[in-house]
């Protein structure tokens, strides 16, 4: 038993020391500054990969490896997400039982607006993602919501992403302390280690993009959500942003949170904001 007490005391003192070290910076950095964060985030990747064109970062692993890029370009000639796209288009055109359609729930009929999602809803005081907005639209029109990790949701977001292809990511953070808090919460989630593997999102997507983890090449974090939803050969099916977050968690042996949990909405907000200015390339095809 005594060994364990030493251990706990040891870790407490270590934590105290760590806190003392960071406290001056914590006070200085207390004011959340998304603009500076985004600039630093983008510059980190631009400097780390000087010969990757800025807009190429949205192609994830394919911006990191030539052999993989050729296989991707071959797939893109007739991409496997073609069926999800057609299904999404059809669902958009099919009215709900009450006669309304998705177009009635979204600005500009839902066409060419994906780059503004997720947005901060000042009434609700929370981040609203595209997947959440789609399900709320269904519920508002008396329809049952779709699972966040299954094909129907992926088809809808695939079609909406397709109508925004090439548009530059344009996420806004209103001057509202709750919005800044959501951004900061998303950033904290992104850098926090979790699971028995003790990895954070950054362990893979900031410290080692371009390197291999088993057969896969790790994608850079910059622009990583611009291609959502993605058809993954490994799933031989479509994957929404929610499905990607949930599977990433379980791969570090962390029990995933429920889809569209606040943490997931905030980390999507953070990752999308820091990718402002990079083109939407969804729906994407990935290994």
């Amino acid at each position, binding site marked *: 038993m005594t060994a364990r007490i030493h251990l706990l005391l040891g870790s407490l003192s270590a934590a105290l020391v760590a806190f003392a070290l960071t406290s001056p910076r914590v006070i200085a950095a207390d004011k959340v500054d998304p603009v500076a964060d985004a600039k630093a985030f983008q510059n980190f990747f631009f400097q780390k990969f000087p010969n990757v064109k800025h807009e190429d970062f949205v192609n*994830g*692993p394919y911006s990191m490896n030539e052999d993989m890029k050729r296989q991707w370009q*071959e797939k893109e000639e007739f991409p*496997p997400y073609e069926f999800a796209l057609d299904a999404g288009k059809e669902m958009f055109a099919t009215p709900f039982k009450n006669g309304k359609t998705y177009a009635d729930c979204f600005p500009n009929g839902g066409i060419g607006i994906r780059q503004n999602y997720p947005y901060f809803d000042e009434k609700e005081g929370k981040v609203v993602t595209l997947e959440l907005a789609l399900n709320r639209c269904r519920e508002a029109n008396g329809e049952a919501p779709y699972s966040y990790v299954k094909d129907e949701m992926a088809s809808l977001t695939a079609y909406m992403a397709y109508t925004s292809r090439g548009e530059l990511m344009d996420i806004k953070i209103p001057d509202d302390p709750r919005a800044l808090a959501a951004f900061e919460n998303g950033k904290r989630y992104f850098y926090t280690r979790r699971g028995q593997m003790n990895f954070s999102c950054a362990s893979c997507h900031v410290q080692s993009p371009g390197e291999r*983890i*088993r*057969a896969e090449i790790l994608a850079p974090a910059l622009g990583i959500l611009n291609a959502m939803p993605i058809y993954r050969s490994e799933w031989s099916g479509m994957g929404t942003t929610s499905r990607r977050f949930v599977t990433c968690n379980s791969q570090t042996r962390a029990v995933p949170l429920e889809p569209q949990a606040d943490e997931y909405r905030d980390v999507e907000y953070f990752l999308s904001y820091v990718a402002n200015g990079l083109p939407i390339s969804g729906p994407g095809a*990935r*290994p």
Partner: protein
Amino acid sequence: MTTTTGPLPTRRLILQGAAGVALLGLGNLPFGASPALAAANDKYPEEAFKQKNEADAIKALYGKTAEPSDKIKLDAPEIAENGGVVPISVTTSLDKVTSISFFVAENPFALAASYRIPDGTVAAVANRLKMAKTTNVVAIVEADGKLYSATKEVKVTVGGCGG
């Protein structure tokens, strides 16, 4: 394979050898009957798709053996991004091509796909195949009644976390 010494292993090897030959024999018997030009007619080459290894499959499909040729350009990735979807294509400058087939050596069944090329159709095909593991992809082209082959190894590993 455990490397045991002494008489025992040699007897076992002989037995295994005998069993193998018998199987092969069985495999050939029914095939012997159907015409060698199985590839040319309309029938789906059921027998060829049942063969486990590449040599038997080629024999079952074409009834002859192939010789490597540098006039076949086989395009396949060095490391497959995913064993389930491997883009593989072939073009050839050989003429009077009547058939192109793809074999994945160590797949459960070696023959993956076989294409009949009527005259007037360009001798080139692109497709996406499944590969069980790192192995040789072999493209066979039947031109003017003779068989030519091109081979390339493609590395495949089980996907891990997903980039």
